C-alpha cells in the first residue's frame, strides 16, 4: 500500500485527477490530455527499480498506451480537419474506438494486459483493472459504432473465458476475468451509461475485496492457496467472493449480470445474451478451481509447511464479504 510512500501517493493523486480531467472535458482534446496525464502518472506507480519484472512491465505499459493515445490524437485531428467535426462516418468511429479499446485492454488489442499484470503488485493491478478503465469507457460511450462494438464484445467474452482456463498465476487469471467483464461493461455502455456505472461500481467492489484479500495473504499463484493454517473464515471469504465474482445467486455478483441480461433481452439481443451466459459458465469453472482450497476441508496437508499469515485487516474483509453475501437482500430494502 502506498499510504506510507509519499512519492507514490503523489502520483496516485495525479492519477485520480487525470481521470476527472478526461471525463469532465467538453472537447476531444481535453480527453486526450487526461489520457496522457493518466499514462504519465501511472508509470511511476508501477516501476520499481528493485524488481526487474516491474520495470519491464512499466516499459511495456508505456509503449502500448502511447501508441493508443497517439492514434487517438490522430483520429481527433483528422475528425477536426478533414470532416470539420460534422459527419462521423463508421471508419473514423472504428479508429477512435480501437484506440480506446487498446487503452482498456480489450480484444483484439489485449495481448499486453496479461503480460503486464504479471509484473505488478496487487494494489497496482487493482488500479489497472478498475480505475484505468473509467476514462476509456466513458470516451467510448460518447460515440461508438454499434456493429464494431458487438463484434468486440463477443471476442472479449470468448477470449476472457477461454484464455483464462490454462493459467495458474492469479494475476493473469484476474486479467482474463477483467477482459471478460470488459465485455459485459461495453455491452452495458451500448444500452445506457447509468447501467455501465452500476455494473462498474459493483465489479470494482468485488475486485477490491479480491485484491485486498490476496494482498493480505500475499499469494500470487494458485498452488500457494493450499496452505495449512489459513484461518477458516478467510477461506470462507475467499469462497464467497469468488462465487460472487462468478455471478452465482444469491451473492451480490449476480446483481449486475442480472440487470444487464434483463436489459439486453428488453432490447431483443438474444444470441448475445446466450453467449454471455455460456462464457460466464466457463469463467465460473476456473473461479471454482481456485476455490477448491476453500471448499475442501480435508485435503493433503504437509507437515513441514508452516507459514503464518498476518490478519491485520481481517475485520475489513469480513465486513466487505458480509456485504457480498447480504447485498442483494439489503438492496431490496432500498426499493420499497
Amino acid at each position, binding site marked *: 500500500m502506498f499510504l506510507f510512500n509519499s512519492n507514490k501517493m503523489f502520483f496516485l493523486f495525479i492519477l485520480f485527477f487525470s481521470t476527472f480531467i478526461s471525463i469532465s472535458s467538453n472537447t476531444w482534446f481535453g480527453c486526450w490530455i487526461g489520457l496522457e496525464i493518466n499514462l504519465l502518472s501511472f508509470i511511476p506507480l508501477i516501476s520499481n527499480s528493485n524488481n526487474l519484472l516491474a520495470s519491464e512491465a512499466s516499459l511495456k505499459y508505456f509503449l502500448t498506451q502511447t501508441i493508443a493515445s497517439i492514434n487517438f490524437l490522430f483520429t481527433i485531428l483528422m475528425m477536426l480537419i478533414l470532416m470539420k467535426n460534422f459527419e462521423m462516418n463508421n*471508419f473514423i468511429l472504428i479508429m477512435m474506438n*480501437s484506440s480506446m479499446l487498446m487503452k482498456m485492454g480489450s480484444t483484439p488489442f489485449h*495481448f499486453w494486459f*496479461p503480460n503486464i499484470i504479471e509484473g505488478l503488485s496487487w494494489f497496482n493491478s487493482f488500479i489497472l483493472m478498475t480505475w484505468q478503465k473509467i476514462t476509456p469507457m466513458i470516451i467510448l460511450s460518447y460515440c461508438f459504432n454499434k456493429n464494431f462494438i458487438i463484434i468486440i464484445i463477443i471476442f472479449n467474452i470468448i477470449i476472457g473465458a*477461454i*484464455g483464462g482456463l*490454462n493459467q495458474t498465476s492469479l494475476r493473469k487469471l484476474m486479467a482474463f476475468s477483467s477482459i471478460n467483464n470488459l465485455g459485459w461493461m461495453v455491452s452495458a455502455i451500448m444500452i445506457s451509461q447509468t447501467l455501465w456505472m452500476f455494473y462498474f461500481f459493483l465489479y470494482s467492489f468485488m475486485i477490491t475485496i479480491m485484491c485486498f484479500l490476496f494482498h493480505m495473504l500475499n499469494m500470487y499463484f494458485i498452488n500457494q492457496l493450499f496452505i495449512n493454517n489459513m484461518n477458516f473464515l478467510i477461506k470462507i471469504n475467499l469462497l464467497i467472493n469468488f462465487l460472487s465474482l462468478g455471478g452465482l445467486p444469491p451473492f451480490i455478483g449476480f446483481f449486475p449480470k442480472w440487470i444487464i441480461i434483463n436489459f439486453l433481452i428488453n432490447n431483443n439481443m438474444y444470441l448475445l445474451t446466450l453467449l454471455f451466459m455460456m462464457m460466464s459458465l466457463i469463467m465460473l469453472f476456473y473461479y471454482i478451481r481456485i476455490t477448491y482450497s476453500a471448499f475442501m476441508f480435508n485435503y493433503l496437508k504437509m507437515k513441514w509447511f508452516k507459514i503464518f499469515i498476518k490478519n491485520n485487516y481481517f475485520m475489513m474483509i469480513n465486513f466487505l464479504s458480509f456485504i457480498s453475501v447480504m447485498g442483494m437482500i439489503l438492496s431490496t430494502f432500498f426499493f420499497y
Partner: protein
Amino acid sequence: MNNMKYSICFISFIFLFMMSMLNFIFMIYFIMNKLVILLEWEIISFNSISIVMSILLDWMSLLFMMFVFLISSVVIYYSKSYMSSELNLMRFIILVLLFVFSMMLLIISPNIISILLGWDGLGLVSYCLVIYYQNLKSYNAGMLTALSNRIGDVLILMVISWMLNYGSWNYIFYLEFMNNDWQMKFVSSMIIMAAMTKSAQIPFSSWLPAAMAAPTPVSALVHSSTLVTAGVYLLIRFNMLLLDTFFLKMLLLLSGLTMFMAGISANYEFDLKKIIALSTLSQLGLMMSILSMGMPDLAFFHLLTHAMFKALLFMCAGVIIHLMNDMQDIRFMGGISMYIPLTTLCMNISNMALCGIPFLAGFYSKDLVLEMVNFSTFNLSIFFLFYLSTGLTMFYSFRLVMYLMINDYNLMSIYNLYDEDYVMLKSMFILLFMSVISGSFLNWMIFPYPYMIYLPFNMKMMVIYVSLIGGMFGYLVSNMNIYSVNKFIMTYNLSNFLGMMWFMPNLSTYGLNYYFLKFSQNLVKNIDLGWSEIYSGFGMMSIMKKNSVLYNIYQMNNFKIYLFSFVIWMVIILFMMLFNI
C-alpha cells in the same frame, strides 16, 4: 421367551380355527339363503372414478376363506413342533399371519385395486418365507419366486389402467356386459397371464419346484393350497369375461401341457418335496384346464379338495423329513409303514385321495372333472392329455408309496423312527378328517343339483383302467436298480428333457438373464460412458482445454508484433475511410 414362542403358535391356532368355524357357519347360512353382502368404503372419488375398498362376502369367498383359515391354523400348530428348534419362531409365525392376511384380502375383494393389494402382498410375503432358511438354494428360489410373481403384479397394474375405461374398478358388476369390447380383450389376456404366473403354468412354472427350499409348513400352506390357487381363484372370479375367447383356448392348451409335463417330471425326481410340488403343479394344471373348458365351479371344487389332501401330504412329508434327519431323498427312505403307522395312514389316505380312489375327497372332484371332460366336445388331444395325466398321477403316487413304504429302509443301520409327536399328529388328523369327508360335504353344499352325465361303460371305466396301468408302471419303475439305469443313458437326451421340466427353469433363468445383462452392458459402455459424456461433461471440457492451449500460443508472442498489428489495423481502417470518402 420360550413360552412366548410356543404360546403364539397356540393362540394363532385357536384364533384362526375359530375364524374358520365362524366362516363355516356364515357360509352355510349364505348358501342356504342365497345371500351376498358387499361392503364398501370409498377412499377417494374424483374425475368420475372412485377408489373404494370393498369387501364381498358371498358363499365362494366365505368357503375359500374357511378352508384357508383351517389349513393355516393347522399349519401354525404343526409348526409349533416342526420349527421348535428355530431361534426366530416369532418372525416365522408373524410372516405366516401376514401371508394369511394378504390371502384374505385377495379373496374378499371384488375390486381390482384391492386384489392388487393382496396379490402384491402375497408375492412379497412368499418371498420372505421362501428365503427363510438363508442358504444359497433358498436365495435363488426366492428370487425366482418373487420375480415370477412380479410379472403377474405388473400385469395386474396394467389391468387397473385398462379398466379405467369403464369408470369403476369393481369388475364384478360389469364383466358380463362388457366382454365384447376390445379393451376387455386386452384385460382378459392380461388377467389370464397374471393367473398363469401365480399358478405356475407353462411358461412360468419354474418357480414352484424351486420354492420347495422353503420350510415345510410354508410349503404346506403356501405352495399347496393358498398362493398357487390365487391364480385359479382370480380366473374363477373373472370367468364371465373369459368365456368363448381365444385366450381361454390358449389357456386350455397350456394348462393341459402343464399337467402332462409335471406328471412326467415327477417320475424322474428323487426329492420328496419336489415330487409333491410337481404333483401340485399337475393338479393346478387340471384346475386351470377344467376352468378353461368353461366349468368354473368344478375348478373351485377341485381347488378346495386338493387343498386339503395336498396340505396333509406336505405335512406327512415334513414328519418323514424330520425323522430321516433332514434328508429329503426318497432313495434313502423306505419301510416307514412298519415304524410310523399313523403317519403312514395319513400319507396313504392323502395319496389315495390324490389319485381319486372312490369316496375319498379327491374322488368327488377329480372324477367329476374327468367325466365332464368325457362329456364335453373337445378334441382328442385334450382327451389324451387329461387321461395320460391321470395315469401319470397314479404312476408317481404309487412310485412314491413304493419307495417310501414298501421298500427297505436305506439310510443308516442304526435308526429310531418314532411316531409320538402328538402336536404334528393332531394337526394332521384334523386335515385327515377333512380330506376324507370334504369331498362329499362340498359336493352336497356347492352343487344344488347334480351334473347330468351319460357315458358308455368303457368311458366310465377309463379312469380305473388308466389308474391301474399307472399303478403298475409305478411298481415297475420303483424296482429299478443301479443296473437298469443304463437304459436311461441310452435315452439320455429324452430323459434330460423330460426330467428337467422341459428345460423351463434354465430358460427362465439363464436364457433371459444373459440377454438383458449384455444389453445393459452395451448401453452403459456406449451411451452412458460414451456419447453422453462426449456431448456433455467430458467432451466439452476437452474441447475447452484444447482451445485454451491453442489460445496460449497466440498469447505468448513477441511484444512488438502486438504493437505492429495495432498500427496495421489503423492503417487499414484509415485507407478504407480515405477511399470511401
